[in-house]
C-alpha cells in the first residue's frame, strides 16, 4: 500500500472521529421541547392507562395499556391502527402489561403477573411466549435474537442478563461486586451500540456506566442525596423514595435520566449527560411521567393526564 493511501485512510479516520466527537465536544447548552403529537385525552377512551411505549423504525407507536389489558398500535399521526391482547393468561393475553421494546421485526412485552415475554410481529400478531424464570423490571431488545433484562436480585450479586430468542441466558453483565440491601439494586438501563451499559438506580442517587465485561467506567450523583429514606415494611427495611425512574440514550449518545421524587420538579426533570457522565443540562417535562422513550429520530415520548395521554416532543438541541 502506498504511503499516500495510508495517509489518506488515516486522515479519513481522523476526520470521522473528529466529526463524531464534535457533537459531544460542543457544549450542549439546553434542550427545548416542542409538542408535536398527543394521543388520548380525558374526553375519549383511546388510552385507559398506558404503561410501556416503544416506536418502530417506521415511527409507528406501540403502547401497553394496563387498564385495557392489551397492546395498541398507532400510526405516526396518532391514529389507532391495531389492538391486540385481552384480559387473561392465555397466549397473547395479559393480566398487567408493563414494558415494551422492539427489534426490526418483533415487539416484546412483559406482564407483571406472567413470567416471560410475549412476542408479537410488527402488526401485533401474537407469535409466541419466551419463558423466563425471573420477573423483568426493565427490558431492552438488542436485536431479533437478543434481549437484555434487569430483575431484582434479593440474594445474589446484581447483573443485567442477556438472553437469546429461546430464553437461554447467553451473558451476564454484573454491575456490583456484592449483594445489595433489598430493592437497592433496582435499576433502569440502556445499552449503546458498543455494549456499554448505562444504569440509573431507582432508589439510589447513582447513575453509572459499565463496560460489557462488567467494569465500572464511571459513577455519578445528580441529586446530592446523602441518605436514602427507608421504612420497616413487614420483615424488610425498604427504600421509599424514587431517585430515578428511567434512562434512555438518544442517537447522539446523550444520556437522558428521568428523575423521581427527589428532583426539583418531581418526576418531570430529565437530566442530560454526556457519555463521560458530565451533567450538561436539565429539561423539564410539562407533566409528571413514570418513563421516557426516545425514538431513532430523537423524538421524546412521555406521559400526561396520569397515563391517559401520551405526548410526543421534538427535541431542539441548543449548543454553545
Amino acid at each position, binding site marked *: 500500500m502506498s504511503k499516500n493511501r495510508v495517509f489518506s485512510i488515516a486522515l479519513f479516520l481522523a476526520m470521522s472521529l473528529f466529526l463524531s466527537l464534535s457533537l459531544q465536544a460542543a457544549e450542549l447548552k439546553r434542550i427545548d421541547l416542542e409538542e408535536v403529537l398527543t394521543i388520548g385525552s380525558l374526553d375519549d377512551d383511546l388510552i385507559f392507562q398506558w404503561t410501556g411505549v416503544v416506536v418502530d423504525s417506521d415511527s409507528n407507536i406501540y403502547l401497553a395499556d394496563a387498564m385495557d389489558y392489551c397492546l395498541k398500535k398507532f400510526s405516526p399521526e396518532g391514529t389507532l391502527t391495531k389492538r391486540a391482547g385481552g384480559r387473561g393468561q392465555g397466549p397473547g393475553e395479559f393480566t398487567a402489561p408493563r414494558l415494551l421494546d422492539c427489534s426490526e421485526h418483533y415487539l416484546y412485552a412483559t406482564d407483571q403477573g406472567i413470567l416471560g415475554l410475549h412476542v408479537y410481529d410488527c402488526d401485533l400478531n401474537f407469535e409466541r411466549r419466551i419463558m423466563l424464570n425471573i420477573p423483568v423490571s426493565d427490558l431492552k431488545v438488542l436485536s431479533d435474537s437478543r434481549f437484555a433484562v434487569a430483575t431484582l436480585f434479593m440474594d445474589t450479586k446484581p447483573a443485567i442478563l442477556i438472553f437469546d430468542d429461546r430464553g437461554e441466558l447467553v451473558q451476564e453483565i454484573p454491575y456490583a461486586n456484592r449483594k445489595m440491601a433489598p430493592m437497592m439494586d433496582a435499576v433502569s438501563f440502556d445499552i449503546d451500540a458498543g455494549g456499554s451499559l448505562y444504569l440509573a438506580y*431507582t432508589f439510589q442517587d447513582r447513575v453509572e456506566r459499565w463496560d460489557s465485561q462488567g467494569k465500572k467506567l464511571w459513577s455519578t450523583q445528580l441529586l446530592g442525596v446523602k441518605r436514602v429514606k427507608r421504612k420497616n415494611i413487614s420483615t424488610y427495611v425498604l427504600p421509599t423514595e*424514587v431517585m430515578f425512574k428511567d434512562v434512555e440514550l438518544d442517537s447522539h449518545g446523550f444520556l437522558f435520566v428521568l428523575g423521581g421524587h427527589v428532583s426539583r420538579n418531581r418526576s418531570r426533570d430529565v437530566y442530560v449527560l454526556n457519555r463521560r457522565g458530565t451533567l450538561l443540562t436539565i429539561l423539564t417535562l410539562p407533566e409528571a411521567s413514570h418513563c421516557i422513550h426516545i425514538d431513532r429520530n430523537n423524538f421524546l415520548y412521555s406521559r400526561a393526564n396520569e397515563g391517559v395521554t401520551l405526548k410526543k416532543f421534538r427535541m431542539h438541541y441548543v449548543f454553545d
Partner: protein
Amino acid sequence: MISKIFKNKKLITLCLVFAALFLSYAAAFPGDGGCEMGLVLCWIDYMSMPDMAVFYCGLGYVFCKKYVEA
C-alpha cells in the same frame, strides 16, 4: 347531659366503630402510603410461595413507586 348522650347513642357508637377501624388499620400499616400497603397485601396473598412473593411483590412495589407515586 346524660340524656343528650343517650339521644346520640347511635351516632357515638358509629363514630367509635369507625375510630376503632381506623386505628386498627393504621396499626397494621403505620404511616405507610399506598405502595407500602399494596406490598404488605401482596405478601399476604403470596404467603404460600414466599420465594415468588419476594420477586412479584417487589416488582409491584417498584412499579407502584414509579407509576402511582408520580
